[in-house]
């Protein structure tokens, strides 16, 4: 899927930005289109991904879980083992390098679960860039370990107390800061959203996930998988997994599934399912699907996992949904918690609550699939950051 020159995937995407940011966005677009095909840049990026971040990450056959569920063979793409503890590092190193090449001395970012904030802070420390992170005060409270990590890494963490005090408000605040500071500052957006070229650029940086899966599954199984599954907030880990398979002719039969947060249920007001429950709208520079009221006021999203707590979705996902190419399903908090416990106990892997939403799809569906079906789940991050949330939730359920 290629977007057009104005950054549209079908009718989704675009550049809905205040005028002040137009030159800043143009600068990124130009710099990125040059560096994308620049061998030195790509080599430098590969170097850091391999020697600093620990790529490639394993594609692990989850034998215990597969046997327990009694259907498809389940493979886990272990982005949780990437430096920083999540796939976010693929993008933060890429964009921080880009920022350096553009001559910027400062990077800013939004964060929800804190993983992107940590990834950005690491890249800032590595490349000597002043780093400032915007994070909703509610997320700060529920993701304390990541806040401490960002501070240790030398970043300034700015609590956001406006709006619903979560991820979308952190994006608002980062954009506001950027409109005053773009001359020396790069806005290191954390997912496949925002104005063009961010959705394309972040997807490209994350595509390393799917590229590796392609090679690894050929080595281990001698064929491509039947199912690709990933959780979706903005959608960067999912795009990273899906994208390299989308262009391939012999991949047209692969069942690709994105799992949104159903929170307390799609029939309640508390969820983050922008595709299932949202409609077309414009926010944060893009036309896509958003949760909104009848007037078009953006509604608050909810999920037990801070990283899926966003009321919109990247424009390329909106497009793939409209095409019917990718299936968009959802998992509730309860299902995610159950999946979290299940993977922890059967495989000895503690997944992020975000990734647990994707695991939940396997728990619900793998048992009904043929034994020779191959399912690859993107284990986008590790769950250490979620221990407090999970322990509290489990205690609540037991009482």
């Amino acid at each position: 899927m290629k977007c057009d020159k104005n950054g549209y995937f079908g009718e989704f995407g675009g550049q809905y930005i205040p005028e002040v940011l137009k030159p800043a966005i143009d600068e990124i677009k130009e710099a990125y289109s040059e560096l994308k095909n620049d061998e030195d840049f790509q080599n430098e990026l590969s170097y850091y991904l391999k020697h600093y971040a620990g790529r490639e990450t394993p594609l692990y056959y989850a034998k215990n879980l597969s046997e327990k569920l009694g259907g498809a063979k389940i493979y886990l793409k272990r982005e949780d083992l990437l430096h920083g503890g999540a796939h976010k590092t693929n993008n933060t190193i890429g964009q921080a390098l880009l920022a350096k090449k553009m001559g910027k001395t400062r990077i800013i970012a939004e964060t929800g679960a804190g993983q992107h904030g940590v990834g950005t802070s690491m890249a800032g420390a590595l490349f000597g860039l002043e780093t400032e992170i915007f994070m909703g005060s509610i997320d700060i409270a529920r993701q304390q370990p990541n806040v401490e990590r960002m501070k240790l890494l030398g970043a300034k963490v700015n609590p956001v107390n406006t709006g619903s005090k979560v991820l979308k408000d952190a994006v608002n605040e980062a954009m506001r800061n950027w409109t005053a500071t773009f001359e020396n500052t790069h806005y290191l957006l954390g997912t496949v959203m925002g104005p063009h070229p961010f959705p394309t650029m972040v997807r490209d940086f994350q595509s390393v996930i799917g590229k590796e899966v392609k090679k690894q599954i050929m080595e281990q199984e001698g064929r491509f998988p039947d199912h690709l599954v990933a959780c979706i907030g903005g959608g960067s880990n999912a795009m990273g997994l899906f994208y390299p398979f989308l262009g391939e002719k012999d991949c047209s039969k692969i069942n690709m599934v994105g799992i949104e947060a159903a929170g307390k249920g799609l029939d309640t007001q508390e969820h983050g399912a922008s595709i299932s429950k949202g409609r077309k709208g414009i926010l944060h520079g893009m036309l896509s699907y958003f949760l909104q009221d009848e007037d078009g006021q953006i509604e608050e999203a909810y999920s037990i996992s801070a990283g899926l707590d966003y009321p919109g979705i990247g424009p390329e996902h909106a497009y793939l949904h409209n095409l019917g190419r990718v299936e968009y399903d959802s998992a509730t908090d309860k299902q995610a918690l159950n999946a979290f416990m299940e993977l922890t106990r059967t495989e000895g892997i503690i997944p992020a609550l975000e990734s647990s939403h994707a695991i939940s799809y396997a728990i619900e569906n793998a048992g009904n699939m043929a034994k020779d079906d191959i399912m690859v789940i993107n284990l986008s991050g590790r769950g250490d950051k979620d221990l407090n949330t999970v322990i509290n939730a489990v205690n609540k359920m037991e009482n």
Partner: protein
Amino acid sequence: MKNLNNLNEKPILVSFLVSGDPNIEATLKYMKALDEYCGVIELGIPFSDPVADGSTIQEANVRSLSNGFKINQSFDLLKEFRKDSDTPVVLMTYYNLVYNRGIEDFVIDAKKAGANGLIIVDLPLDEAEEYQKICKKHEFGTIFLVAPNTPDERIIYSDESSTMFLYLISTFGITGTRDSFEKMTFDFIKRAKSLCSDNSKLYVGFGISNEKHAENLISQGADGIIVGSAFVNIIKEYGDSEDTIIKLKELAKELHGGIEKGYAKYIKSD
């Protein structure tokens, strides 16, 4: 009697208020209070995620929305205002609210209510083709924004695309009051003036809060100043009260005085 074509001979004050802050009835009173000093009133329609606004206007949006504000209330308010005044009113909002209602329906409803034009902060020219077509069809005013870093050819294009006035963003950043204006803003006004058509009206906004600002900006050749946060701050401090009306009028009068002084300077220098 004021009308759109001849009111702008001398530089004007554009006052910005947020609909429903702190309630719809109060907004109507404030519009009436400011009317005598204003060439144009800019009426904000609150949005949940105002990314181009600083904390003052964000908080005003929150005050309004948390009282259950609906877009139709802005239109009803405007209809009431039109019973007593023909001062041009432009609406200011974010694109999702327009897109969600349907661009054409929004324009038709806004015009029917008595609005003269629309400012959409996050709709740059590049994405505005259909919007411009619809506004043209309904003879509804378009206002685009330009900033000190907007290239020359884009300023010209923005000027041609703006049928009411061109909105000059004084400096980088978001709305909110600032201490002073620097050379960048003055150079920008001069550059825009040299690029835009002689009939165009160039109004400067973002950060303007006092008489000295008004005087300085008008003396550089601006055709008007747009003041928002300074008025909204008064509303925040004094709430729905007589004091608010008195303070709003005081500030408008002060700004008006600054405009006159600045204009005298400009004429002299011209």
